[in-house]
């Protein structure tokens, strides 16, 4: 067995959770920031839309809230955007150090229920991502911004979000996979 924890395939979820909690303490205390990811989707989409429809984005108050106006533009690539771009790199390093050569196009659990079609899985992933971030923007945050950062601050909004998200996720997963699918999860 490897004694180097960086090369261990999996860490205890409690250890990982404690690490994310400590990371939050560092960002709160020394960066003046709270962990979050979903605001970046607004900046990214707004910046992309602005390339093809600048006047449309400039007229949209929601985009302007995050990207600023022509007179007072805000940076697109800021702290959280940089964080989000670094996420896959951090995960890649962790995977490689742990010896993982995992590649997944269609998850086993999904294929067992909906078949091996990549197109179906990719379409579902797209649609799921769309509805999810619509919900995140409506609620004001996602699993990190609300779930972790807001949860640890004991924010009322975040605990409402977390309870609603969890209950809905359980319901949706049982509708999708049923009791039979659950047995293979």
């Amino acid at each position: 067995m490897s004694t180097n924890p960086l090369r261990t395939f999996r860490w205890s979820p409690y250890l990982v959770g404690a690490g994310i909690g400590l990371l939050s303490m560092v960002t709160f205390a020394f960066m003046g920031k709270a962990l979050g990811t979903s605001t970046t989707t607004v900046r990214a989409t707004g910046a992309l839309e602005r390339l093809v429809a600048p006047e449309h984005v400039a007229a949209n108050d929601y985009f302007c809230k995050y990207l600023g106006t022509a007179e007072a533009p805000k940076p697109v690539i800021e702290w959280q955007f940089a964080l989000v771009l670094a996420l896959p790199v951090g995960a890649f390093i962790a995977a490689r150090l742990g010896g993982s050569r995992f590649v997944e196009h269609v998850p086993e659990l999904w294929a067992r229920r909906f078949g091996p079609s990549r197109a179906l899985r990719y379409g579902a992933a797209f649609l799921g991502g769309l509805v999810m971030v619509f919900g995140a923007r409506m609620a004001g945050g996602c699993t990190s911004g609300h779930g972790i950062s807001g949860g640890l601050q004991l924010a009322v909004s975040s605990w409402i979000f977390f309870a609603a998200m969890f209950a809905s996720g359980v319901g949706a997963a049982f509708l999708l996979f049923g009791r039979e699918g659950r047995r293979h999860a």
Partner: protein
Amino acid sequence: MPDALLATPAVSATPHLPALAEILPMNDLLLAQAASGSLFADPKTLVLGVLTGLVFGFLLQKGGVTRYGVIVGQFLLRDFTVLKVMLTAVVVGAVGVYGMRAVGMDVPLHVKGTAVAMNLIGGVLFGAGMAVAGYCPGTGMAALGDGSRHAAFAVLGMLAGAGVYAELDAPVKGAVGSVGDLGKVTFADVTGLSIWWFVLAVVVLAACVFAALESFGPKRGGGSGGTTATDPAAPAPKAAAPSTT
């Protein structure tokens, strides 16, 4: 009024846009802002963001929550890794952040606004979407680095979701935004009690949940042994790192 980003590339790339830009009150100021780099925040902020993202992504992968099966397994109540990670992070972060404030450190809070209907409906949509996508925004990005190809489509969907919401923000807020609008409040603010009662409540809740899961829960996601079994591509630990011992 186009913003800084488009000023250089888009106008020159598409022939019909310069005319459009002439109609609009676009001026030299805009071009100057584009040139001065308003696309990027200052380097220090970016470096701190990258470092935070590297550590966050690393931890998410090591915890197994970059895997579709682990996240959907949580919603199917078969694998409690996600809940364990999140609750532990909340407990450590709550004690840590409020503890640092208690000893006099200047640690500003970042509480998001409570609007009960928005938080609730948004949460319901989020959970349903997450069950289908198999990732949340952060774990979806991290999953890209952990070999998940379909996560790329989830990420594209997330971008589309932000675009759709931006179009509908005004009517959505107009319809339900004022329902239960309490502002940026914590449980201490709405009850008048000390925040430490709620920190204590979370610690006790987490302890009870963890004790129950370790005693009666499914024997999955309980540590390094549990989630390894869900990964067919996982090599044996010995083969993974023969050189480090």
